[in-house]
């Protein structure tokens, strides 16, 4: 039972990080109907931003979180401006390929600059408590707390503010929205900025929880988050969060019954099964094709 509770906390921690990344995939898909394959690598590079920052300027955790989120947001907007915006009216495949290409460029640039895994300096010294045999560290609580706070803020932003409303409007009908005086380009850039900033937060949290970072993290962790977004129903913000916690739970408990090498197999099989039986994910709306 203790063991089970311990694993449950680990699952929530992992799920929270996945959720932050998955939100970036889902928001961009919701607004632009485009899979931003580069997002996983944006997450990866954000933890390298964090590393660089700490090497030159040992700032406290909150400052590091904010600076990295800002830097990552700028990167996200830059990618959108340079690579995706010119293709907005091009065939859909072109945009997907460009996203895949951007991801590879980021990943391999990082790999070329830092061929080996890097050890992260400790962002803060965690305190551990023991509740009836279950160990909880303040770091775990911090990760879960920061993630949940960001998710609640995002949900509020999308549902309650004018900008959030504009985003939902663009997701519904991109052709009509400019006629209502909504600056589409600004809102789309904002979507990328928020998505990337959340990825940046995930990068900082991930690097403090698992302090060895490498250039392949975008594939290993980022793509899992993508799977989470798809399982939840890509395009749906709440679905992304749900999918992330489902995935985190499945991953953590797979390792308790099977060798850890089976983790990817189980995760991607789950994805395939869900797509076959529920093609638009758990909370996604089916796309209606008009003739």
């Amino acid at each position: 039972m203790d063991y089970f509770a311990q694993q449950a906390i680990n699952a929530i921690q992992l799920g929270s990080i996945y959720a932050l990344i998955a939100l970036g995939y889902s928001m961009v898909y919701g607004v632009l109907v485009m899979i931003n394959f580069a997002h996983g690598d944006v997450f990866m590079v954000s933890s390298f931003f964090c590393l660089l920052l700490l090497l030159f300027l040992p700032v406290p955790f909150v400052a590091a979180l904010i600076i990295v989120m800002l830097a990552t947001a700028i990167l996200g907007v830059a990618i959108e401006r340079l690579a995706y915006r010119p293709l907005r009216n091009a065939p859909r495949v072109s945009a997907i390929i460009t996203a895949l290409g951007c991801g590879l460029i980021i990943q391999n640039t990082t790999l070329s600059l830092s061929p080996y895994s890097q050890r992260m300096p400790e962002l803060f010294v965690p305190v551990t408590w023991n509740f009836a045999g279950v160990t909880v560290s303040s770091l775990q609580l911090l990760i879960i707390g920061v993630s949940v706070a960001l998710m609640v803020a995002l949900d509020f932003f999308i549902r309650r503010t004018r900008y959030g409303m504009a985003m939902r409007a663009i997701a519904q009908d991109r052709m009509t929205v400019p006629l209502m005086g909504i600056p589409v380009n600004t809102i789309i850039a904002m979507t990328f900025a928020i998505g990337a900033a959340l990825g940046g937060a995930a990068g900082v949290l991930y690097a403090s929880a698992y302090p060895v970072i490498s250039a392949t993290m975008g594939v290993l962790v980022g793509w899992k988050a993508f799977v989470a977004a798809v399982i939840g129903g890509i395009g749906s913000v709440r679905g992304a969060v749900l999918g992330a916690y489902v995935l985190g739970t499945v991953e953590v408990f797979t390792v308790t019954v099977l060798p850890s090498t089976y983790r990817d197999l189980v995760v991607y099989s789950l994805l395939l099964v869900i797509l076959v039986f529920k093609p638009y994910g758990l909370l996604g709306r089916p796309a209606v094709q008009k003739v």
Partner: protein
Amino acid sequence: MTRWFRQPPPRGVLLTLLAAGLAACFVIEQFGLVDDYVRFVLITLGINIILCVSLNLVNGWMGEFSVGHAGFMALGAYLSACVSVKWLAWGDPLWMFPLAVIGGGLMAGAVGFLLGLLSFKTRGDYLAIITLAFLMIVKSGLENIPYVGGARGFLGIGNHTTLLWTAIWTALTLWAIRNLVYSRFGRGIVAVREDEIAANAMGVDTRKAKLAAFVVSSFFGGVAGALFAHQLQFINPGVFDIVKSTEILVMVYLGGVGSLAGSILGATVFTFLSQVLQPLGTWRMVILPLILVLLMLFRPRGIMGMREFPWFVPRREFPAKEDKK
């Protein structure tokens, strides 16, 4: 001179060229006319052409987006390696190797059939995600099968991929896919790209067309994987990852979607470029995607997109006037 290339070649020219090419490969191989490096690059070129043309069938002519081609390669590579190393190791490579290659192709084709079934319900982005999941499942599945070496890889594969075999399979792939896309049935595949619902309304069996495209494409993907395994003599699951798939995508979209000549061109440019850029190490994989992104921004359909070199087009496609004489 240019008039020559605007019309189909005189009868028999293609066959003669093909025979001459195969004979040249045989002679080069037999008498060792080129050094090992050139031979290696030429074989890689052939394999890349097979991969590029076969992926082009799904991504170009049918207009879907598959990122799973490296998975089919992996299936073909592993099955053929099992045949040639474990099951028929006593056989003479002369008949055992083609059997291994065909076996690899059939294995990949069978799995391609299953993936084709999934493509009935889902299209576009979701199908791309399914192919991605397929790729990851194949890779991590192979890592967990100790019989084929697990994550450490499959060692001791014979060096059976000769220049001649590569040339024969390349020609076969080009021939099969040309005849498929210019056949009455193959037009259905192109119709799926243009508008699936309209195609259905016109009486095209889109399900059959999709299945055929997936099966043929994955069969030749598997063949390429088999040749690849017997060229490198060592494979591990890590080789067949998303980067490998992306390399094939670069070739397809560089050369041009829906074009045989484009596929050959794309594979050729890619093969030589990646050899030239070899000294750059990992920066090579920065430059190649950068080329892809720039290409998408400035020439989204690739060099030969949707156009074809007339020599690859069947004679009946041309106006009857030119066919006389």
